[in-house]
């Protein structure tokens, strides 16, 4: 508690969120896009823990929410990687530009 002000930590989490967003829009590799989404989810986790610790120390909602987000992110990554593996079998590539069977 003593030392680091809340604004510093919120700055880190916001920066992480926008780095994730930037990665999502610029990267063309599916695994890297998945990693960008994980960055976004982790910035949300930091937000929840920080708000819980600094602003609402008497409550536990934020901590619980973080635990659930971590669990669901794991499940989401598992399904996404299964889909990407299946796509790699048919396309022989994990570049999103190559997955362009349907257009217009």
């Amino acid at each position, binding site marked *: 508690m003593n030392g680091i002000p809340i604004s510093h930590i919120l700055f880190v989490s916001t920066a992480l*969120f926008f780095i*994730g967003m930037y990665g*999502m829009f610029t990267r063309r590799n*599916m695994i890297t*896009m*998945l990693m960008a*989404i994980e960055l*976004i*989810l982790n*910035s*949300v986790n930091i*937000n*929840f823990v920080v*708000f819980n610790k600094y*602003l*609402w120390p008497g*409550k536990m*909602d*934020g901590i*619980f*929410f973080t635990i*659930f*987000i971590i669990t*669901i992110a794991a*499940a*989401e990554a598992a*399904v*996404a990687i*299964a*889909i*990407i593996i*299946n*796509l790699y079998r*048919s*396309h022989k590539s994990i570049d*999103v530009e190559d*997955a362009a*069977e*349907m257009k*217009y």
Partner: protein
Amino acid sequence: MWNDYLQLMKSEWMVIIVIFILLFLKLGKKERNTESLLHFINVLLFINLASGFIYHRDGSLFGDMFHSNSLLAFEKNVLSLGTLIISMQSFHWLKNHKHILEFYILLLSTLLGMFFMLSSNNLLMFYLGLELSTIPLAALANFDLEKRVSSEAAMKLILSSAFSSGLLLFGISMLYGSTGTLNYLELSQQLTGTPLQILSFVMFAAGFGFKISAVPFHLWTADVYEGSPVAVTSYLSVISKGAILFVFVSVLYQVFHHMALAWYNLIFIISVLTMTIGNLFALRQQNMKRFLAFSSISQVGFILIGITGQSAAGSASVIYFVLIYVFSNLGAFGVVSLVSALTGKETVNDYKGFYKNNRVLSWVLAISLFSLAGIPPTAGFFGKFFLLLAGAGTTHQSGGQINYLLIVIAALNMVISLYYYLRIIRAMFMDSTEQPIEKIKSSFSPNLSFIICIAGILITGIASGAYNYIYSLVK
């Protein structure tokens, strides 16, 4: 104590029981007659639907995380009915598929997620339900494992839905930071419209916009709808979208109603953009599934008009329209699904001269398209009428004025949409080719589903009791 858990969560327990029956069947012996298995599953789904009508009680569970009332019971019944219709329509596609039980287990898991999402009274519960209803859908979109387009659709669905839930979560985290609670009622008392709360609402709306494919966030929709198997496409466009619209309405009116002046203009602009752009893209589509995808985007634009209205009339008109939309969109998708499963043809040109060999099916498709376009004797007209009445009438948010601009834009969009719906009807009834689609031998389940859809389209509009019933539930 245990009575509460059984009675309030009745519809959830029913879905869980059906999932477990199917899991045990999966564990049992290998070889099975697929047709009788499909009939058995349809009967289970019918029991699930029928049990929804029997008995319900108001109340809340788990420290006010989960609540149940008669409106939610009605919304769950609409979703169960849609799932039953889709299951009957996908009979011919599933008959030759190896993994029937997995399909239904995933499908019912998403339905369970939607039920929990509808009953949520807390943002944590809402998020859990939302994820339970989207993650298995991505696996379902990939269900034609050997097709290239199917895995592509699934990849687009999972990446965009994960990204949108990231946005939604960021909004929720800021709401938690500024109010210190996740409960809907406490949130609504503490929200005053500070800049942080407005920013969190924008994130929230963006996350929802992805899920209902409102316009700046609609780009994934067409590809996912085209690539997925038809049964999954109809599930995505009707059930999943309907559930999220129900939740969106209740969250907007329950949680954010003190910030109504802040979100009125946002929803208004999004609805106009969604209608117009959805319509303009639908004009040039050749693939039937893609065409129905864009038409469903423009329908969402109309639904958003209703959301801008006063709370009671707004949510009643949205729920009424979703009920009609279930019948009319599933009628159209049912015919497309049947033709696609039996002949593999999916483009508009394939439907030329369809009337020659398939009279009944072309009438089913035509009536469904008329209802989607909103032509008077069908229910779609009444649905759109109530949406416009709620959205463009004298509301508190619009300063007590009738919103003529909105009516003009909506009328123009109705005309544009009429053009492309009638294009399909003209192709079926008036155009001719050397090789029209041959007579399609449908079986009992799809036929029954068409009867339900057509009866729904013709009755829910004319019987004024339907709207009055929903309105009384909302109040």
